[in-house]
Each structure stands twice: as structure tokens, then as C-alpha cells.
């Protein structure tokens, strides 16, 4: 049966639907019930639709359309191919959970009116969709900038607070520095044809130097959006400032558009990347991963902690991209496919897990009004739904089997394991050591997540006010369940996911991950290496052991369970302040990785009447890169300031001189 709409048309209809839903909110700007309970769930439905359309059409050939909007002679070219479908499916599926949660989340409050917020939110979603569909540099940049600006307004929705304004400014600044780099990269990619469609770029012949320059600029530009070192500084500022569903979207989905951009430029537009380019993202990615996770361990604000954890995951993703480039460049197709699959898989995984965690913090923030880990605790009793669903995200992002985080980590480690076969001296020796850093980052991620979950949800409440915390509402629960279910399913059916990603790897590097003759429940990405992983079987074994043990324990030894005060080695006066704080839990990491941090500590003396302990953990990169850079820019600006005399005669003179100069040039 021929469908009524082609997949591309359906995508366009759905994206337009988002804009319409957003605009509808402007009809009743102040009406929270209408915007939150009607429009956001509608947006979620559109997200589901987008995921279904993109997921269903994954393996279909690319199709394109030219929209007659935009500048004269510069219409929008759009194209739907497997790469964009993969990321559209990610966008739709993850945003569906976030939107339905947002329906329960946004309430009356200070800051932007709900209708305006809804417009910005849906515009943000739609622009991300158009970024993925764009097939010429012009459409791409328009969508890219719309995305940046819409998210900027979302970040600053509480614009009354000065620190939120400055966080927004930092985000916008780095987004634009990145955008300039991307623009320059497109400028090189057109290769002298002055045609800015992606087709022209695919056809353009570039010298190796120019190609490398285009790759470098794209890596920098998209890296700035993704939070690659050293342009990561905006993430830990912007994420806590934004409302939680927005943080979830930015971290879960928007960062992935940057990953999409790098993949698009490297494998599609540039065509044949040289193998040594891959070393740059590998090194930067590993540094970013380690840096992000170490900083996450030291955080005391739960959203900042998650922001740093996103930096870590972006590092892992870029490491995978780099590996794929290296393997592809030296002709090791099977491993290149494996690395690329690991990247795509991890991108999808991270969208689900990180959105889930950010929404969990949103629910906690709503219930308690606290973002500071030092004032939370014990919420598993008051908020069981949020706690247990967040636990799924925590276990997934810690890379524990049989959930989804483990699968992509496993794939990446397998790819690393064979990197010693790269036929280049030194590289084949140093590359496998990257596996050690990936393993270290993964283990540290578990540390961070135990800290996050343990301090927020477990233990005793650290403040009396927490006793009144309420669990999430129905819509919020639905959103959390959706995302948690995604984490579980992505973890249990890896072979199906990888099959689905086959069309994308074919498009990018021309080979599919081999499934061999393995059964549907087993993942065996390298048939000749005899490595396999079957999460369903693993889960079944653990479940059987669990069930047997608990039945045996309950049937054979029927003993009672009593409740009593905590024992604590016989110490009777246990109170909530004796638990580890977030600072305390992160202390070993601060101690071991001292060199990473710039720390200011204020220790109380033994005789203080009111002892205070204060520690400020800072980012050395601020001092090493941004402060000198900012100072220099300021000095240049100051030295040019004498031009501004503030007298009309001076400005008229400038105009006159300019005119004369231009005339001299023209004549």
C-alpha cells in the first residue's frame, strides 16, 4: 500500500505541527492550564509521530524537496536520508517524553509567560528538526541559529535573576563563536563553486589541506555546541539556569545535533576523511570525558553535576567518532562500522538517560525547591515514582548491564580492543591505551551517579522541609516512564537497534554491521572474533537466581522482619547531618585529581564559635583560557574606544573618509 504522504512530507507536516502548537499558545499567553495540559501533550504526540515516521522509514532511500521559502535564488533544500532519520527518531522519541513531562511541570510562576515559553519550546523542537533535514548551508545555518536563539530564550526564562542572564549570555556567545566556525567550514566545503547546497559540497574537490581545515573548523564549531574541551564552559552554567525539561532537551537532544553535524560534514560532505584526522577527536574526546566526569564528582548542584556528566558523554561520543575516522581511513571497515554504531547507539542512549535524569531533578526541584545536594536526601520515601524511575537512568548511565548504557560502552571498548591493528607505528600502541581512559571514565561515572542518587534520594532528609515533598504528578510520571522504558528496551534489544542503524552506517561509510548467523537475542558485531553479548539471557539468569533465592529464603526460613532504630555501631544519636554531604562524597576525587581543580578552601579553626567550612571548586580552564582571552578582547575594544568621540562632527568625518576611500577604490 502506498502511503498518502512520503516520509519527508510527513516529517515536514509534523515539524510544522510543532510550530503551530507553539503559536497556538500565544492565543492565551497567560493560561497555564491550556498551554501545559493541552499543548505540551499535543507536542509530545507529534514527537511520537516523528519517531514513528523516521524509525519506520530508516532503510528507505534518501528523498529530497526544495521549499520555495528563504531568500530569492536561495530556496531551502531539504533531504531525508538514513542519517537524518536516525537523529529525527532520537529527537522525536526523547522529546515526546520530555514534552509530556513538561505538561505537568510548567506552572504559574515568575519569568516568561507560559504561552511564550510554549512557543519558544516548540520552535526549539522544530528548529532542531530542520537542522537535521537541511540540505544546504543556508537552510542549515538558519535552522541552527533559530535553535540557538530559541534555546537561549528558554535558558533565560527566569530572566529576573542576574546569574541566569549571565549564564544565557555565555551560552549565546559560545554558540555564536561555534556558528562562525561552522559557517567558515561550509565556506571551504563549497570548494570555489559558490554553490552552497550540500550536493555541491559532496561533489567539490578539495585539496587535502583545505579538507583538513574544513574538518578542523567543523570539529571546533560543532564541538562548541556539544561541549567539547575547552568550549565546555557554557554547559554547567546554562543547564542549571534552564527549566528542567529544557535542560533535558538541550542535554539529551541538542548536543546530539552537534554530533550529527560532525558526522554529516566528515563522512557525507567531505567524503573520504584522512585517517589521521581521527586522532584529534580521539584525544579531545578522551580528555573531555575524563575532565567532565572528574568535575561531575566534585559538584554540589544536581543540575551542574548532570551537565558535567553530559560533557563526559560528549567526550565518549567524539572518541568514538575519531576511532571511526581512523579505522575508516586505514580501510578497517568492520571496526569502523563498529565504532560508528557505538557512536550512534550511545547518542540515542544518552538522549534517553540524560533526559530521564534531568527530568528527575526537575521533579525534585519542584517538590522541594532545592537544587543543592546538601539540602536534599531521603526522597525515595516521599517520591517513590521519581526515585525508582531515576534509578533506572542512574544505572543506565553508569554503564551497568543489562541496561542501555552498557551496550554502547561495550561496543566502544570492543572497537578500542582491536585498535592495535591500525597499520601505523606509535598510533597502534597509543590508541589502545584510550581504552584505559574510557574504562576509567565509565567507572568514575558510576561513582558520580552513586553520589547523585544516594545523596538526593537515599539516607535521611537533610532539611525538615523535605518531609512535605510530594511525588510527581500523572503527566510527569508518564514522561519519566516513557524515558525509563526506552533505557530498558534499548538495553535489552541491542541486535535490533544495530540492525536499524545499518542503513545509516551504509550511507556514511558504506558497510553494515554484520549480524552473522547469531539469533535475534544475541549481539555479535564481530563474527570472526567470537565476541557476543545477550542481555536478555543475562537478565533471565539474574532474575532466576533472584527469584530462587528469595523463594528459598522466604519458604525455608520463615522469620519475621522487625523495624528498629538504625544501629550505627551502637551510636544512639544519629542525625541527618552525620551523613556524607555531596562535598564529602566527592572528597576522594578532589583529593586524587587535585591537579584538575582550582580550589579555594576556608577551614575553620578549632576555637571558632560558629565554625564554617567553605570550599569553592573552580575550573582551571577559565583561568588559563577564558580570562586571558576575555582580557585581551577587552583591551582591544578599549583601545578602539577612542574612535567613539560622542560628537556628531567626528562621526560625519568618519563617514566622509569612508566614502572617499570607497570611491578611490572603485574608481
Amino acid at each position, binding site marked *: 500500500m502506498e502511503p498518502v504522504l512520503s516520509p519527508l512530507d510527513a516529517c515536514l507536516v509534523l515539524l510544522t505541527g510543532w510550530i503551530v502548537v507553539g503559536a497556538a499558545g500565544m492565543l492565551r499567553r497567560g493560561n497555564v492550564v491550556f498551554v501545559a495540559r493541552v499543548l505540551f501533550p499535543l507536542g509530545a504526540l507529534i514527537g511520537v509521530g516523528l519517531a514513528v515516521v523516521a524509525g519506520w522509514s530508516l532503510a528507505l532511500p534518501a528523498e529530497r524537496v526544495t521549499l520555495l521559502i528563504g531568500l530569492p535564488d536561495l530556496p531551502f533544500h531539504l533531504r531525508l536520508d538514513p542519517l537524518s532519520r536516525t537523529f529525527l527518531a532520537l529527537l522525536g522519541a526523547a522529546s515526546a517524553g520530555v514534552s509530556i513531562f513538561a505538561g505537568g511541570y510548567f506552572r504559574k510562576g515568575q519569568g516568561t509567560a507560559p504561552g511564550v515559553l510554549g512557543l519558544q519550546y516548540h520552535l526549539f523542537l522544530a528548529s532542531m528538526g530542520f537542522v537535521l533535514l537541511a540540505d544546504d548551508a543556508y537552510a542549515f545555518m538558519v535552522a541552527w541559529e533559530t535553535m540557538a536563539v530559541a534555546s537561549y530564550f528558554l535558558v533565560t526564562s527566569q530572566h529576573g535573576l542576574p546569574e541566569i542572564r549571565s549564564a544565557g549570555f555565555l551560552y549565546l556567545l559560545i554558540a555564536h563563536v561555534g556558528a562562525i566556525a561552522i559557517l567558515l567550514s561550509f565556506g571551504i566545503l563549497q570548494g570555489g563553486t559558490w554553490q552552497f547546497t550540500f550536493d555541491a559540497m559532496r561533489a567539490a574537490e578539495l585539496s587535502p589541506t583545505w579538507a583538513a581545515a574544513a574538518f578542523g573548523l567543523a570539529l571546533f564549531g560543532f564541538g562548541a555546541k556539544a561541549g567539547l574541551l575547552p568550549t565546555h564552559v557554557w554547559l554547567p552554567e546554562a543547564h542549571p539556569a534552564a527549566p528542567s525539561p529544557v535542560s533535558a532537551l538541550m542535554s539529551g537532544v541538542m548536543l546530539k545535533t552537534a554530533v550529527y553535524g560532525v558526522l554529516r560534514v566528515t563522512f557525507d560532505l567531505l567524503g573520504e576523511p584522512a585517517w589521521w584526522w581521527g586522532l584529534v577527536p580521539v584525544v579531545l574526546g578522551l580528555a573531555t570525558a575524563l575532565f567532565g566526569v572528574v568535575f561531575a564528582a566534585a559538584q554540589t548542584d544536581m543540575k551542574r553535576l548532570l551537565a558535567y556528566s553530559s560533557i563526559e558523554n560528549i567526550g565518549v561520543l567524539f572518541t568514538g567518532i575519531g576511532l571511526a575516522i581512523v579505522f575508516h581511513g586505514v580501510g578497517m571497515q568492520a571496526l569502523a562500522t563498529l565504532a560508528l554504531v557505538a557512536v550512534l547507539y550511545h547518542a540515542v542512549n544518552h538522549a534517553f538517560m540524560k533526559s530521564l535524569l534531568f527530568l528527575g531533578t526537575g521533579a525534585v526541584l519542584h517538590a522541594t525547591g532545592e537544587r543543592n545536594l546538601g539540602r536534599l536526601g531521603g526522597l525515595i520515601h516521599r517520591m517513590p515514582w521519581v526515585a525508582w524511575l531515576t534509578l533506572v537512568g542512574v544505572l543506565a548511565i553508569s554503564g551497568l548491564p543489562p541496561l542501555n548504557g552498557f551496550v554502547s560502552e561495550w561496543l566502544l571498548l570492543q572497537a578500542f580492543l582491536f585498535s592495535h591493528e591500525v597499520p601505523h607505528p606509535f598510533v597502534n600502541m597509543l590508541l*589502545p591505551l584510550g581504552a584505559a581512559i574510557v574504562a576509567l571514565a565509565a*567507572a568514575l561515572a558510576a561513582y558520580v551517579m*552513586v553520589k547523585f542518587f544516594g545523596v538526593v534520594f537515599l539516607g535521611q532528609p537533610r532539611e525538615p522541609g523535605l518531609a512535605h515533598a510530594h511525588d510527581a504528578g500523572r503527566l510527569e510520571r508518564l514522561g519519566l516512564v516513557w524515558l525509563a522504558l526506552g533505557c530498558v528496551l534499548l538495553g535489552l534489544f541491542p541486535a535490533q537497534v544495530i540492525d536499524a542503524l545499518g542503513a545509516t552506517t551504509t550511507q556514511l561509510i558504506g558497510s553494515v554491521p554484520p549480524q552473522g548467523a547469531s539469533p535475534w537475542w544475541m549481539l555479535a558485531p564481530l563474527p570472526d572474533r567470537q565476541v557476543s553479548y545477550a542481555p536478555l539471557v543475562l537478565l533471565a539468569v*539474574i532474575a532466576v537466581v533472584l527469584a530462587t533465592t528469595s523463594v528459598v529464603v522466604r519458604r525455608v526460613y520463615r522469620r519475621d522482619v522487625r523495624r*528498629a532504630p*538504625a*544501629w550505627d555501631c551502637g551510636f544512639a544519636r544519629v542525625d541527618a547531618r552525620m551523613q556524607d554531604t555531596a562535598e564529602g562524597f566527592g572528597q576522594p576525587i578532589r583529593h586524587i585529581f587535585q591537579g584538575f581543580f582550582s580550589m579555594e578552601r576556608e577551614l575553620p579553626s578549632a576555637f571558632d564559635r560558629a565554625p564554617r567550612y567553605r570550599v569553592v571548586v573552580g575550573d582551571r580552564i577559565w583561568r588559563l583560557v577564558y580570562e586571558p582571552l576575555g582580557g585581551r578582547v577587552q583591551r582591544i575594544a578599549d583601545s578602539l574606544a577612542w574612535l567613539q568621540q560622542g560628537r556628531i562632527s567626528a562621526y560625519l568625518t568618519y563617514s566622509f573618509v569612508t566614502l572617499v576611500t570607497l570611491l578611490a577604490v572603485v574608481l
Partner: protein
Amino acid sequence: MSGLAWFTQLLEVLAAISLAPLFLGWVNQCRAWLQNRRAPSLLLPYRGIRKLFHKDAVLAEGASPLFRAAPYVVFGAMVAAAAIIPSMGTGLPFTTAADAIALVGLFATARVFMSLAAMDIGTAFGTLGARREMMVGFLAEPALLIVIFVASLLSATTALPLIAERLATQAPALYPSLAFTAVAFTMVLLAENARIPVDNPATHLELTMIHEAMLLEYSARHLALMEWAAALKLFNYACIGFALFVPWGASTGEPDPAALLLSMPVLVGKLAVAGVWLALLETVSAKLRVFRAPEFLATAFMFAVLGLLVHLLLGA
């Protein structure tokens, strides 16, 4: 997959579950002898577990369901881990479900649940134990992974039984890389199983304890499961060590009843020697301050990475 393979699989799991407390008892006995003490009975760990199962459980007032579920999850993860490790035969059907990386993941799952459970009551000792356990874990886990990597580079697979089989059937050769990783592995084993020099299984001194601090609030059957899981973990680690460094004697290749029968006394012999070795190591070393533990583990990590480098340099 033949019936014998399934039998081997089941036998290995049951052997691990039933022998693990015995191995722990043996290590304790050797330790006592080496320290000029009268040794406790070899069966003491069994008696301890039995006693605990027969008691009423006391739960702290602030305990959530997570606290009650954790012992089962930890025990389940350890049993699943035992199913992956080739202690007697290498023809295990379960091998295809989880390789050595998944094994490390299972250990991590157990550790995360144990730490979360320790934080659940909200006592000072619980969180202290959880923090220290995660500190030990985040360094020990990558070290273990690198050890496994070196072995899998030597045998071109990450499936643990296949690694053991290939290492056992290759012509006996001295692998310098394996020597480095053996040192690293021993250090990881000591740290991960809460042995001296990182932790002391025989103390409840608050300044030093790690593992015991996490179990303080557990009682009766929950404590029994946790202790049994700890014994299983030690047993599992010993068997990983055998698979990587002394794989000879396990039944390899096609399942064969005679070889399987022979592998049982071999395993018992290996465990006996390993117990003596472990007790000796613990007796001659001193407990480190907690802040020395990261250095100890970083050394283990470095040894493992060194082993990897040596392998990449020399190809052996």
C-alpha cells in the same frame, strides 16, 4: 549445545555457590596459622551463614525497599558472574551471553547496589563505607578491565572461557605482559575483596573499615546473603585469576566427562594453593591508611597499563 555442556555449566555454578564459603574458611585458617593463632574451623563461614538465616531480620526505621532488595541483587550478580567464569570446563553455554567486559559490568552492578544500600539508612558509617567502596572501585575496575584486555589481545577474544582455552592450549610460553598484569590482578583482587592492605575483613574499627561499614545495618538473612555474596566474589576472583594465568587443568575443547572429572581435583588444588598465597600476602603486608589506597590502586592500574604497553611493544 550438548547436554554435558549444560551439565558443566550447572555444576560450575553450584560448585561456586557451595565452595565459596569453604574457600573463605580456608583462607582464614591459613591466616590464623601464619599468625600463630589457633585456626577456626574450616566450616565456620557455613555456620555463620546458617545462623544468620535462622534469625529474625531487623531493619532500620529509615530503610527503603532498595535496602531490602540489594542483598538479592548483589547475590544474583555474583552467581551470574560465576556462570561466566570457567573454573572447571571451558565449554560453557552461558559464555555467549556475557563476555569478560560484561563480567566487569556485573561486578560493578553489585558494587553500585551495595553502595546505594549503604547510603540508604543515612548513618555516618554507611555513607563513609559507600564512598570508600566507590573510591576503591573506580580505580580497581579499569585496572581489571585492562588486565582482561591484555589477555584478550593474546587470545583475540573477550569471552573468558575462550581466553582460558586459548591460553591453555597454546604452546607454553612466558608472556612478559601477563607477568605485569598478574601483579596488577593480584592487587585488584586484594582491594576488591576487602583484604589487607586496603581493607581488613576482621575489623570493625571505624577509621579503617570499608566493606564492613556498608554492611553494618544488615542483619539475619540479608546479612547472610551479603556475606555469601562476598565469599562468592572472592571465589570468582580466584577463578578469574586461574583462567587468565594458570588455565591448565580445566577441561577444554569438546565436553568430555573424564576431563571434567579430572578438572575438579585440579580446581580444588588450585584453590588450596591460592588460599595459602592470599593468606601469605595478607600476613606480610600492613594495612594502608585509607588515603594510601588510591596510590595502591593507581599502581595496580599502572601495572596493568604497563602490561598492555609491553604487549603492544613486544607482541607477547
